[in-house]
């Protein structure tokens, strides 16, 4: 019988990105005195995850002609009419409060105009200068300040605790607790709580090229699938067009070279060192992320590629000194890695960046399972088919705070901790221990095979035939994984065991992505079907919902509720200009 350490708390938060840390702070403010709050994370508090990696900034309408209505319209149009409108509205409205909280209470210091007001810039897809930022390292400022606030408070911390299962009550009506592996010892720990926030972040790292932090493997959504929760918009994987390409053997490959490089006049060149973007779009390199990603992918399919199979980004025509002055962080990062961004050519490739899909939640972060709340990239709905640059960190911080407020209020009416279903608990433990019962073999080749399969068949451009093939490949890899073992003689900080569990999560979620991709027979935002290139009837917009019953996934289409605005309409006042951003 495997030993399980048992631990009780009142409010449990999984994840320490923008959502998890804000939830901890707000829960402390809203819950009754004496409430126990515990925060658990797969890595170190505030260090793992992706909020810290935010470069661009934080979208929020702060006047000067901009409005919550305008931010909302940009979000709905950017999401191609698929967002849950009530969630998108709350995101835009509450971002105003949250950015003031970040600056005034948390202590972030965002870039200023000479008169002391906050500086805002416009990202692609925005009709106002809206993005608050701290240079091009906004995430570091937000997470470092949040982290030190949480560290200074009496919140219980479980670091390097990997969540492996949501454990419901025996009748399945509510969540009883969460099963973890204490990664430092390799032991199991069951934490019961009255309310649980899942904020593990998405992170589509099942693609050959990907940007997220190395710890991100979609564990949250894999757990949600097993718990029978509905996941929406699972086909919506956002690719960033310019990931660094340096070979399969280096972790540098896939990391983002920032959007601003193209905005400033950076040129994309194919293998023959010719510009190609104007063959695809009149805006050239300044086209939106999805358009540029598809154009690069098309060049790659024509074998017009660089040595490592991508294309080049070239900045030197702007003058190397200008590039160094304007993008010091990027130039230094490339130089540290052996590349000359200011004066030479750097190889780039589209790279999986953000996951719009997630658990179906209401605007208060509640899920269909009593006791479980979801916020940040694990939650679906706010972005629809595409996330605007700058809306990601706004979403995680707004809804993390909401979750903290709501959990703090809800626990007042929850009497006692719930008893976990022993069968589910044992099944989750058996699942985690499975690789220790098989002959040890390398895990890494299977991870590479999954990443190839998803990149080839469920990637930037999709077809029914390709995705059917992808489904078969994912199933084969998934099955092969069950015969790959890990030596279990020392489970303390055993990264190879966690590599196996990571790949288990990625295989499960990859199947859901592929099924949802097959179900969407049109092209919206991040999802592009070569066999269905049109966006389809906007008035009849639907979103996909994947659920797991037993071992099988099913997918259905639900109609989008246009609860605030219908396609073709606007909530902006009459005679409002289309955009407030000066043309470049």
């Amino acid at each position, binding site marked *: 019988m495997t030993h399980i350490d048992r631990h009780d708390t009142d409010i449990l938060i999984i994840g320490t990105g923008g959502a998890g840390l804000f939830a901890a702070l707000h829960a402390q403010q809203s819950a009754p005195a004496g409430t126990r709050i515990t925060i658990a994370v797969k*890595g*170190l*508090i505030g*260090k*793992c*995850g992706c909020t*810290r*990696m935010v470069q661009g900034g934080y979208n929020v309408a702060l006047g000067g002609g901009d409005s919550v209505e305008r931010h909302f319209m940009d979000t709905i149009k950017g999401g191609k009419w698929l967002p849950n409108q009530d969630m998108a509205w709350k995101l835009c409205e509450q971002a105003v*409060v949250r950015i*003031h*909280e970040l*600056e*005034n*209470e*948390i*202590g972030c*210091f965002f870039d*200023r*105009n*000479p*008169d*002391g*007001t*906050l500086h805002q810039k416009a990202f692609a897809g925005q009709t106002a200068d809206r993005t608050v930022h*701290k240079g091009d*390292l906004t*995430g*570091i400022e937000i997470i*470092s*300040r949040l*982290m*030190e606030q949480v*560290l*200074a408070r009496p919140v219980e911390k479980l670091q390097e605790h990997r969540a492996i299962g949501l454990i419901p009550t025996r009748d399945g009506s509510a969540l009883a607790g969460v099963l973890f592996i204490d990664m*430092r010892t390799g032991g199991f720990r069951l934490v019961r709580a009255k309310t649980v926030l899942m904020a593990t972040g998405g992170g589509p790292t099942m693609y050959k090229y990907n940007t997220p*932090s*190395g710890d991100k493997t979609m564990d949250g959504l894999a757990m949600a699938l097993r718990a029978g929760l509905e996941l929406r918009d699972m086909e919506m994987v956002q690719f960033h067009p310019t990931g660094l390409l*340096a*070979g399969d*053997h*280096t*972790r*540098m490959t896939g*990391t*983002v070279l920032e959007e601003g490089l193209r905005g400033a006049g950076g040129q994309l060149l194919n293998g023959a060192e010719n510009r190609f973007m104007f063959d695809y779009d009149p805006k050239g390199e300044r086209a939106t992320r999805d358009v540029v990603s598809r154009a690069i992918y098309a060049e790659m399919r024509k074998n017009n590629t660089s040595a490592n199979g991508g294309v080049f980004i070239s900045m030197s025509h702007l003058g190397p000194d200008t590039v160094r002055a304007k993008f010091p962080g990027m130039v230094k*990062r490339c130089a*540290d*890695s*052996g590349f000359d961004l200011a004066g030479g050519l750097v190889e780039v490739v589209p790279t999986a960046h953000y996951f719009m899909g997630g658990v179906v939640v209401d605007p208060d972060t509640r899920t269909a399972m009593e006791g479980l709340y979801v916020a940040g990239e694990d939650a679906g709905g706010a972005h629809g088919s595409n996330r605007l640059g700058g809306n990601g960190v706004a979403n995680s911080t707004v809804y993390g705070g909401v979750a903290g407020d709501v959990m703090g209020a809800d626990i007042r009416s929850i009497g006692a901790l719930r008893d976990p279903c022993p069968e589910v608990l044992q099944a989750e433990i058996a699942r985690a221990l499975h690789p220790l019962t098989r002959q*040890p073999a390398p*895990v*890494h080749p299977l991870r590479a095979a999954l990443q190839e399969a998803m990149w080839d068949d469920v990637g930037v451009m999709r077809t029914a035939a390709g995705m059917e093939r992808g489904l078969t490949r994912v199933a084969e890899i998934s099955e092969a994984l069950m015969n790959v073992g*890990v*030596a279990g003689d020392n489970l*303390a*900080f*055993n*990264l*190879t065991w966690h*590599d196996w569990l990571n790949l288990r999560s990625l295989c499960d979620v990859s199947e859901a992505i592929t099924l949802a991709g097959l179900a969407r027979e049109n092209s919206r935002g991040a999802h592009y079907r070569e066999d269905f290139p049109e966006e389809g009837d906007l008035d009849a917009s639907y979103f996909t919902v994947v659920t797991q019953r037993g071992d099988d996934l099913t997918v259905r289409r639900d109609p989008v509720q246009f609860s605030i605005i219908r396609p073709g309409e606007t909530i902006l006042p009459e005679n409002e200009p289309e955009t407030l951003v000066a043309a470049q």
Partner: protein
Amino acid sequence: MTRTPEMLHVTVQRGTAQDSRKERYDVPARENQTVLDVVSWIQQEADPTLSYRFACRVGMCGSCAMMVNGVPRWTCRTHVSRVAGDGRLDIAPLRNLPVIKDLATDMDPFFDKWVAAEAHHHPTRGRLEEFDPIKPDSPERAEANLGIECINCGICYAACDTVAGNPDYLGPAALQRAWTLLNDSRDADRPGILAAVSGRGGCHNCHSMGSCAQYCPNGLNPMRAIAGLKRETVKAALRGKRDA
């Protein structure tokens, strides 16, 4: 034409503080290769039991710092060619912190000291009030900005001989953060910060040896910040005597 890759000769410190040993690995040298890639290759291809920590891969999170040929470095941003001219690498866990296993250290003492230095913002305004209209070129703000890009990676802490000799010393990163806050006109608890950094483990332990500034991958200068704290704590002490 592919040429046969040459080998890097790598020594890695394994085990825990009580039971540590060096192990040797031969790792194929590649053109684009960081020290983190070398460590990852060993775990993925040679020894699946190797423990280490990394997250962002791009020098933003400060999780992967280790001792590389005796010097603390971000392994994700250290190209092998810069440190292994002779094809040899010696990799060990970050100095001055307890080892959990192999290359992974326990960073809690580092962050406990961050808390002890009162190194978090003490608000003067709330979320329903306007932003403080601070001019970016005001002298205090310019001083505060100098240290703001710290990512708490612990490299200065590992480099500091005073930390090595005095486990109570708060260390360069926490003290630099305190200095940033002291210069932030929005902070409400200047006396609290000064008290926190002037105690037994405080800024006066610093011998100005400068390793923190020498090794900071972001080019920050905690020693300068600590000198500022020394001045301000002395001034505060003198004021206290005068007022007494």
